[in-house]
């Protein structure tokens, strides 16, 4: 007899639990306000990343096309996966000293893991985070970038 009743209580409890679950989905179905979707390409205008967003490593240039990078290579050393290659150039400064400056600051976006070590370790704060995230391309070689813009030069610090 006991098992007979259990048979029915089982059915009852089971149905109850199922209805409970259905109430959750049902409630969401009827409350379109709970939709959380951000419609990406449509909201492109208004979409703003958080200001600390790590999109890519960039080298800010000022309006005179100048940057801070000295070409010391510390960032390349610190980068855990070799995403940065520094090609140095030797020039002769006006006062006759031989000096190394940056020729190409090559940045492999395709390998970067956005760990931030390069930015943190750069002694002259030449690098920073870019907010761009739309990187998809058809050709992998497009992902290798030269961060210092052509013809750019280094900002001489006031302290010098």
């Amino acid at each position: 007899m006991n098992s007979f009743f259990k048979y029915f209580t089982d059915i009852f409890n089971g149905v109850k639990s199922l209805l409970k679950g259905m109430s959750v989905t049902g409630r969401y179905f009827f409350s379109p306000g709970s939709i959380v979707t951000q419609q990406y390409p449509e909201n492109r205008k208004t979409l703003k990343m958080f200001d600390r967003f790590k999109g890519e490593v960039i080298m800010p240039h000022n309006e005179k096309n100048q940057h801070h990078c000295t070409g010391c290579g510390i960032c390349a050393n610190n980068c855990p996966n070799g995403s940065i290659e520094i090609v140095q150039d030797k020039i002769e400064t006006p006062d006759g000293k031989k000096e190394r400056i940056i020729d190409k600051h090559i940045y492999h976006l395709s390998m970067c893991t956005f760990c931030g070590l390069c930015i943190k370790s750069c002694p002259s704060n030449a690098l920073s985070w870019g907010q761009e995230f739309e990187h998809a391309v058809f050709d992998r070689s497009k992902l290798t970038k030269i961060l210092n813009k052509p013809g750019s030069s280094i900002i001489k610090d006031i302290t010098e």
Partner: protein
Amino acid sequence: MKEADFRDNDTLELFKHSGGNILFTTIDAIMDWGRANSLWPLTFATSCCAIEMMAAAAPRHDFSRFGMEVYRASPRQADMIVVAGTIVNKMAPVLKRLYDQMPDPKYVIAMGACAVSGGPFFYNSYHVVRGVDHIIPVDVYVPGCPVRPEALLYGVMQLQRKIKLETLTNPRKTENLQ
């Protein structure tokens, strides 16, 4: 999104075929429209980027707006494979086989630094394939580690643009791409 907002338009130009006659262009347009807007991905994910792929399918970013939420577990019914995550030497033949088993036309998105180039495991690792394009032909590269869901959606839109260049007279033959 406007054409100019996209990156890498110059590479896209290279894919363009010279136009056919008008009848064919309409058919092509319909065909490409169908294909581009109905990309069913294969459930294929190996590591971290997979989580972001799931996030892209999640309510916040909602893949399904692109008609892509129909994840197919069987490659026979999938149109596209999103290689999300690292591919290692042991996995490479599996990936190749899965790709081979998909019906034409099929597309590949390399998602994440690992799939694009080996990413953090490019140097010093003994078991990582440095970019899935060594194994299968890749249509769109989406760098990032991990890729933001938005970036993936952007990559999908890039792929859609690429698909829209196909023509009936000059169909895409994946086997010849390699």
